């Protein structure tokens, strides 16, 4: 058991300063503001600047395009991005998960073709599992892939391919054997989004993030882009689900060493929420009074601070469900607390704390959905951690 302040060497302190300076330059308020307005999920210039330092995969060896940082320094790179609530896709992981999947399941040829560019920040990749009729039931894929010599022809439609408008690739499940059982007829591909027949159409979300429909109309790709065996798409997807659900991003599976880092980066959003509320509470009103001196405000800040601390110590599998519930509850309550001006969004004059509370209140609703709903998560925890018998609704999920 150890909760002591980290002992940082002078070198590490200097590195930390460098990280801060880096973000001051490459993740400015203006860029955050623009990102918030447009909701792209990536800031390409930031990605390139990180790539130039090996910080896309900070803990990876230099030979693999990383920076070879020790776990602490690698965490500091992420920590400072979380503190700034940077662009959501690097924060919340898809690109790392796709890269991890390519690393495990891609051919050497594909890895050589793709990964160096990812590490340089030049190549961006997206998740493309979900279809209009395959959300929680992720294996209900209708997109088809038909073999044609050394190529595959892909036809179908995906949605929630977040970041596709900026990405070079999307990881796509497709049905290659329509006669096999639901989970056995799938194959995974990494589809180049500049291929002919790909069309990306944006969808806006309540949280302000842009996501996309991606239409695949007879898209021809080389077999090189296959990830894993033909028919093994569900196993490949499941292993990336496992990564998605249990691993902090980028640090390669290490436990987060700073409490602010926690799964899915939502913990950082919870922290930003509490910080914003505390800031609001300390600002004097026109009559000189401060909300922080009122019991109703103090109790609610204490509740939210308790939630934040609790989420920082709650172990992996539970924290996603708990953090989502805490975000939804606390964002609603803290926005109530500020009263009428709480209706003003970021960028509008008079918005309390720059509209942060209002934004997080909207954003929070998505946290019970993204990456598999919290209902599905609870099913999995009940079965895998509590040992309860499998819920009937997911009987067919892995049959």
């Amino acid at each position, binding site marked *: 058991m150890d909760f002591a302040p980290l002992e940082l060497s002078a070198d590490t302190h200097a590195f930390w300063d460098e990280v801060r300076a880096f973000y001051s330059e490459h993740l400015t308020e203006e860029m955050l503001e623009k990102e918030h307005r447009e909701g792209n999920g990536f800031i390409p210039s930031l990605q390139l600047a990180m790539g130039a330092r090996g910080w896309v995969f900070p803990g990876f060896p230099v030979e693999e395009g990383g920076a070879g940082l020790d776990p602490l320094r690698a965490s500091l790179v992420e920590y400072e991005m979380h503190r700034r609530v940077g662009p959501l896709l690097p924060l919340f992981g898809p690109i790392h998960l796709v890269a991890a999947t390519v690393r495990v399941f891609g051919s050497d040829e594909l890895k050589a073709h793709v990964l160096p560019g990812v590490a340089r920040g030049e190549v961006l990749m997206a998740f493309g599992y979900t279809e209009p009729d395959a959300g*929680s039931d992720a294996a209900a894929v209708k997109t088809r892939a038909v073999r044609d010599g050394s190529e595959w022809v892909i036809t179908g439609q995906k949605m929630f391919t977040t970041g596709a408008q900026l990405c070079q690739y999307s990881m796509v499940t497709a049905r290659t054997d329509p006669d096999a059982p639901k989970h056995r007829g799938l194959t995974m591909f990494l589809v180049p989004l500049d291929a002919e027949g790909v069309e990306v159409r944006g*969808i*806006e979300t*309540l949280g302000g993030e842009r996501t996309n429909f991606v239409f695949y109309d007879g898209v021809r790709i080389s077999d090189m882009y296959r990830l894993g065996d033909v028919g093994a798409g569900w196993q490949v997807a499941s292993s990336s689900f496992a990564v998605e659900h249990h691993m902090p991003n980028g640090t390669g599976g290490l436990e987060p060493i700073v409490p602010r880092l926690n799964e899915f980066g939502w913990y950082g959003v919870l922290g930003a929420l509490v910080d914003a509320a505390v800031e609001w509470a300390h600002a004097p009103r026109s009559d000189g009074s401060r909300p922080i001196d009122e019991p109703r405000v103090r109790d609610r800040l204490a509740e939210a601070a308790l939630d934040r601390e609790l989420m920082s110590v709650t172990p992996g599998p539970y924290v996603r469900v708990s953090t989502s519930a805490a975000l939804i509850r606390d964002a*609603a309550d803290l926005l109530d*607390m500020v009263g009428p001006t709480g209706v003003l969004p970021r960028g509008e004059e*008079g918005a309390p704390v720059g509209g942060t509370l209002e934004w997080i209140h*909207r954003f929070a*609703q998505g946290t019970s959905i993204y990456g598999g709903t919290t209902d599905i998560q609870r099913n999995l925890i009940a079965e895998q951690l509590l040992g309860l018998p499998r819920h009937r609704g997911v009987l067919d999920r892995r049959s």
Partner: protein
Amino acid sequence: MADAELRNNDFSLSDDQETLRATFASFFERESPIDRVRSAEPLGFDEKLWQQLVSTGVPTMGLPPDRGGDGAGLVELALVAEQAGYRLAPVPLVPVVTAARLLARCGNATTEWLAAIAAGTRRVALAVHPARAGEAQLVPGGAVADGIVGFVENHLVLATRSEPASGPRNIGSEPLTWWDPGDPHESLLEVASGAPARASFDDACREWRLLSAATLVGMAQAALDLAVQYAKDRVAFGVPIGTFQAIAHPLVDVAGAVQGARHLAWKAAWLADHEPEQAPAEMEMAYLHSCRAAQQATAVGIHTQGGFGFTLESDMQLYFRRAKSAALLAGDPRARLAAIADHLYGPAQPELTGQR
């Protein structure tokens, strides 16, 4: 609310009330379809729809007959407001109704305004917090109002401004405006003052909250209906998702909360119409619970619809955003608890607790 008092507990509607409700259910279904609601964003106002509403007489039906109205009560207004909420009608119905009713109680200085409101040539809105020069507040409906009724340092005033109002963007897409009675562009006409003015103002704010509660009930019902329909239609794992308790049970809880909210609003409106001295606690309860029920209904609605529910393509987000803004404009909803306690138990006597 007296403890051992026996009251009737009859929520049935009269034939006239049923007709009113059905008429405005049809009216808003026809005239406020969701694409019209969307195209009225971000301001949240559709002038043509307002004029159609004026032609039904609704904005002034709650005025006394001698002030140009039909003498309709809050029960009737609540029935209409619920239907407007169900269809998210982009019109400042509740602000105009409550401000006009307040003006009608303030003598003859405002007669021409009431006539103009009835004719659809002017609109008024209510500043729902006591005002002070130098302190701007957000006024619901104010961005499309020709005058704002507010309580400024012991006076009830009707304010008009020489410059067009600007409406800040807001999550509810409501036609809000900033209003500061000390702004040099404002002309203030005093219409009442002193304790009676304050009492009238407090009544009007409560009426505004009550009719907001009714609007929220409509929103909550609509969100529930959308979610239930989705849960029937959407198939996952081979069955409609409504077969899963994780989907179905929260919807049952929402349904209970919405039904309760509707009845609370009706009962509060009835008490305000018939026994106003008994009404305040019930009105505050109705408001607070409606805020909660609508937020619960729309948040559960988004979750029920999953990824789709979180996109702007889903209508659920229209309800979600408005439910929150309606809950915020009166101030922290939880502060209503203090008001409820004041009405039920009398004001606190903190001097007794000074030594603790």
